[in-house]
């Protein structure tokens, strides 16, 4: 019964999330919205890179930056997708209180709401990478891709990001204002500390340990390695580690952050219930 409730909560929340995300306009405008935004973000980096290197897209740094930025779309999409559901339901649609009294699992419901963003994020990632391969010579050879490593890493990472989203959702439940910015701020900070668009070596030495502690650092590194092989390993940051070692670190950190996230959500959820914060709207 418990499993069934969890699954039902997750499934219906995913469907609800998709309807909310996609029904605000006609399919054409929705597609434009889903494509233009990520491509523009990637294009900023491409232009920056192109100006400085005089268009030398053959350098190993280019696929490092491009793929890191492309897969980072998932961080913003999945993590904020889960936590934003609290703001959306509580402030915008004013339905969070009904969700809490309905016979569903709230954590599963919130995780399910992140699915829609995962789908739109996947479309954006796919389009960004395809554009890179077709127009910018990102050296991606489908025959040489380590698909097993890629999918294992991708799934593990997305689950890890969803659980981090749950942590942010818990904090969002207890914060009075600016709750909408928590996800964006966290994603923005991780962008710097995860080696997404530059190797960690570029950061000041005292701040690098933070990057080494972030599971997203290893997740992005493995995704790059699985897709373009040795190109990513050319950078000294994690070059000494084998794929299996990085996967081990990623799994360990994911388990750690996952456990912390569930614990934080439970604490925040209890506090929000006790303080009557579930149906509070700030109109902020």
């Amino acid at each position, binding site marked *: 019964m418990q499993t069934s409730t969890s699954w039902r909560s997750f499934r219906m929340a995913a469907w609800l999330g998709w309807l909310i995300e996609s029904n605000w306009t006609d399919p054409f405008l929705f597609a434009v919205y889903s494509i233009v935004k990520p491509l523009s973000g990637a294009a900023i980096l491409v232009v920056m890179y192109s100006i400085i290197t005089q268009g030398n897209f053959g350098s190993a740094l280019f696929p490092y930056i491009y793929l890191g930025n492309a897969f980072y779309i998932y961080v913003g999409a999945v993590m904020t997708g889960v936590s934003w559901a609290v703001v959306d339901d509580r402030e915008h649609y004013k339905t969070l209180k009904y969700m809490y009294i309905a016979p569903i699992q709230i954590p599963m419901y919130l995780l399910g709401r992140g699915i829609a963003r995962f789908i739109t994020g996947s479309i954006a990632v796919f389009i960004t990478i395809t554009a890179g391969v077709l127009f910018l010579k990102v050296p991606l050879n489908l025959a040489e891709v380590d698909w097993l490593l890629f999918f294992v890493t991708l799934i593990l990472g997305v689950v890890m990001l969803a659980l981090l989203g749950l942590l942010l959702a818990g904090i969002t439940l207890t914060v009075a204002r600016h709750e909408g910015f928590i996800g964006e701020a966290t994603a923005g*900070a991780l962008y710097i500390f995860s080696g997404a668009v530059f190797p960690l070596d570029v950061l000041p030495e005292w701040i690098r340990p933070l990057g080494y502690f972030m599971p997203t650092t290893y997740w992005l590194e493995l995704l790059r390695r699985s897709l373009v092989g040795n190109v990513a390993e050319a950078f000294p940051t994690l070059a000494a580690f084998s794929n299996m070692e990085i996967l081990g670190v990623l799994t360990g950190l994911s388990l750690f952050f996952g456990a912390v996230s569930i614990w934080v959500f439970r604490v925040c959820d209890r506090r929000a219930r006790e303080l009557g914060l579930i149906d509070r709207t700030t109109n902020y």
Partner: protein
Amino acid sequence: MGNLNDALLRPYTRKDTGWRLFLKTIIARAYPRIIGQQREVSWLVFDLIMPMLAVIAYVFVYRALDAPEEYIGFVVMGGAMTAFWMNILWSMSSQLYWEKEQGNLALYIMAPNSMMAILLGMALGGMLATALRALAVTLLGIFMFGVTYTVISYVQLFLVFMLAMIALYGMGMMMASAFLLFGREAWHMANLAQEPIFLASGFYFPIKSLPFWVAAGASIIPLTLGMDAMRQLVFPSGFQFGFMTVQWEIIILAILSVTFIVTAKILLAHIEKIAVREGRITESRR
């Protein structure tokens, strides 16, 4: 209670109209924004730190690419100016939409004051936070990344900045009317106008790097030419990265300022007319 009744029953001692009403409306609408910001200090954390994150990331990308130091300055200036663009997008363009959602828009339409004055008040009220954000990013550039500024002409710099702001806020007023017509799509439209504008307007690189016609098209956004001119005026090597001369950019910004403000006035009057005649604009539909 007695005092309240007295206040309500007391006849007007003075009924403001014309420019007095315009000015008082601006002050009245700016007031809650300024006071609200002081009462909720947590905005400092989000409003100051978030724009810095993007700037820091792009600075490190340039560092990873061994870019010349001017580019670090370009990114910092672009990061500072994003504060004004975000203010236009979220605190002006989509503001009337939010006001509608909260039920205030009908009151604005009914009130005998100008919608332009209301929007101007919002802009001025939000300017404090925006200027602080811009200042914080500029200081970050100076102290964390060692960016140095060498102003060639303070008069031209002041003129460019003021014209860019007038044109930008005129554009914001225009967009406020347009966004109101988008209905619930307004939020997405504002969201959609972030990254593409950062790209097209050259927030993080000189606009000259883009193909000529793309840069020319992007010049419709006042910040494009404003930033290009300011980069030429505050960085010693800025002139070699300029899209066109500063004098031409000043002339174009002046034309944009007049065009946007006149168009905003016409559009706002049109929206007000539709709202009164059809009662459709002010209804909230989630």
